[in-house]
């Protein structure tokens, strides 16, 4: 197997329960391949957000194995996790922008946390602001931005560092249908650059908009994979010249 075909994330019989409650995720097994596009669907309460939390390393599972970029992240020391988080881009459902920072500084945050010199921060952040159409709102605080604008800032922040995996939780939940399609095109463009994209949504219309996508359907905490495609998908060619 070539290096480009190494799995990005593997879940093997993963279960998650909060405290002593019942499992919210049970026996979840799948593999995310580089340059693939996934929709994570399911009814409210099916466990989409919990699965995403496991993916963006905000939660440890109660059982099972999670491998990320070839490493078992369950047994990894806490101090090593930031290095893995820096390879992920996350669009939170509630955006989670830093309230006292401008749009510019929010987008720049992943670069600064990753130690990119300040001189090298300005251009990509300015480019991203222009790309999401918010160049004129660079100094605006999140509280003064509309829901759609906040969402675009959150997306810009998630993609600024060219993550290996982009995780988006209901990214079209607060935007009109036109903007939803535009956001999907944006995710596709990133996907063409080699980023693995996982979009959690309950909007079934979106699924048809990305033909090459795979569906991960959660039902009461269990992942439906009747054909075994998620666990063992056929090999696909990743985009060339991604970097």
């Amino acid at each position, binding site marked *: 197997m070539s290096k480009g075909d190494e799995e990005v994330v593997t879940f093997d019989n993963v279960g998650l329960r909060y405290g002593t409650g019942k499992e919210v995720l049970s026996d979840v097994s799948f593999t995310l391949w580089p340059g693939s596009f996934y929709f994570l669907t399911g009814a409210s309460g099916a466990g989409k957000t919990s699965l995403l939390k496991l993916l*963006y*390393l*905000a*939660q*440890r599972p109660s059982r099972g194995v999670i491998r990320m970029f070839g490493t078992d992240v369950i047994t990894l020391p*806490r*101090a090593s*996790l*930031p*290095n893995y*988080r*820096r*390879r992920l881009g*996350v669009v939170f459902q509630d955006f*989670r*922008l*830093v*309230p*006292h*920072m401008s749009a510019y*500084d929010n987008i*720049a*945050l*992943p*670069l*600064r*946390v*990753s*130690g*990119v010199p*300040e001189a*090298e921060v300005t251009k*990509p952040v300015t*480019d*991203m602001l*222009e*790309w*999401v*159409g918010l160049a004129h709102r660079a100094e605006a605080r999140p509280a003064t931005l509309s829901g759609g604008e906040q969402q*675009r800032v959150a997306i810009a*922040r998630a*993609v*600024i*560092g*060219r993550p*290996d995996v982009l995780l988006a939780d209901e990214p079209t939940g607060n935007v009109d249908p036109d903007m939803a399609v*535009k956001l999907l*095109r*944006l995710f*596709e*463009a*990133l996907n063409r*650059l080699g980023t693995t994209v996982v979009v959690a949504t309950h909007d079934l219309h979106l699924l048809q908009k990305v033909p090459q996508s795979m569906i991960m359907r959660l039902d009461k905490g269990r992942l439906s994979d009747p054909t075994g495609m998620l666990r063992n998908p056929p090999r696909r060619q990743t985009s060339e010249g991604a*970097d």
Partner: protein
Amino acid sequence: MSETPPTLRGRLKRGLVPFRGDRANQLLPQGSLAGPVPWVIAIMVALTVIATAAGLALSNLASGARDELSGGATVQIIQADPGERTRQAQRVEEALANFPEVATLRQIPDDELEQLLEPWLGAGVDSEAVPVPALIDVRFRGEATPDNLRRIRAAILQVAPDARVDAQSTWLRPVFSAIASLQYLAIALVVLLAITSTAAVFLAARSALGSNRETIEIVHLLGGTDTQIARVFQRTVGFDATLGGIVGLVLGMGAVLFLGQRFAALDNGMVGGGGLGWLDWIAVASVPLITVALAMLTARVTVVAALRRML
């Protein structure tokens, strides 16, 4: 918004590199730790400076007095008849002159005695009306050991039956004991103030951590390390503590200098020995430095401990 993202820079070098400087400081909103913290630290530093200076001055006072008095003894000739008193005093001086252990001896002149007694008896005391003992100040070559005292007491009583010999350190033992108690009190105060300062910073850091939990979680999920986040708090607390430390040092030093002048004005030999040397001043000036270091350490430990509860 165009469909194709701008040519983003190549993949980041994602080392666990520092996140520092002014930009890192923006992680906390301006003034999130300010408020009472610098003032609490200023008061603590001022009180610690005063307590430290007092403790050191008392230590110097006790040490100076002990050095001065440990090698001294006083011979009193308690005789109402002035002639006989003078004769016995003279014989005592002759007897003590033969002792090799005795370095110097000096009979206190009458006018000096009058000066000593003036506060109680008034000026122009008639030595016949109020018989005042003759006093001879004896300085030994070493310490006034019990053995030395016993031998000179035996020799003196043979030539001056009305004489009484007292080691000077014996008189002042209760004073030394009181000074030692005050020193312990000053040390206890310094320790208590340090604990209080630490507790104040701990509470301030916990409070700032609580009110910025959302921001910290975001940075944490973006790949921020505990050290990066703790450094931001540490730096903010350090700035507040430095500000408080400078104000506290100025207030404390002002109080110490004022008290020093007041005590110097007493013109009392014993109090005069309680000054501060340059090493003492360095120790006093190091109080705010130690406070800043303690505050930064407390902030770091508090924040790192809180962050460890997150994944």
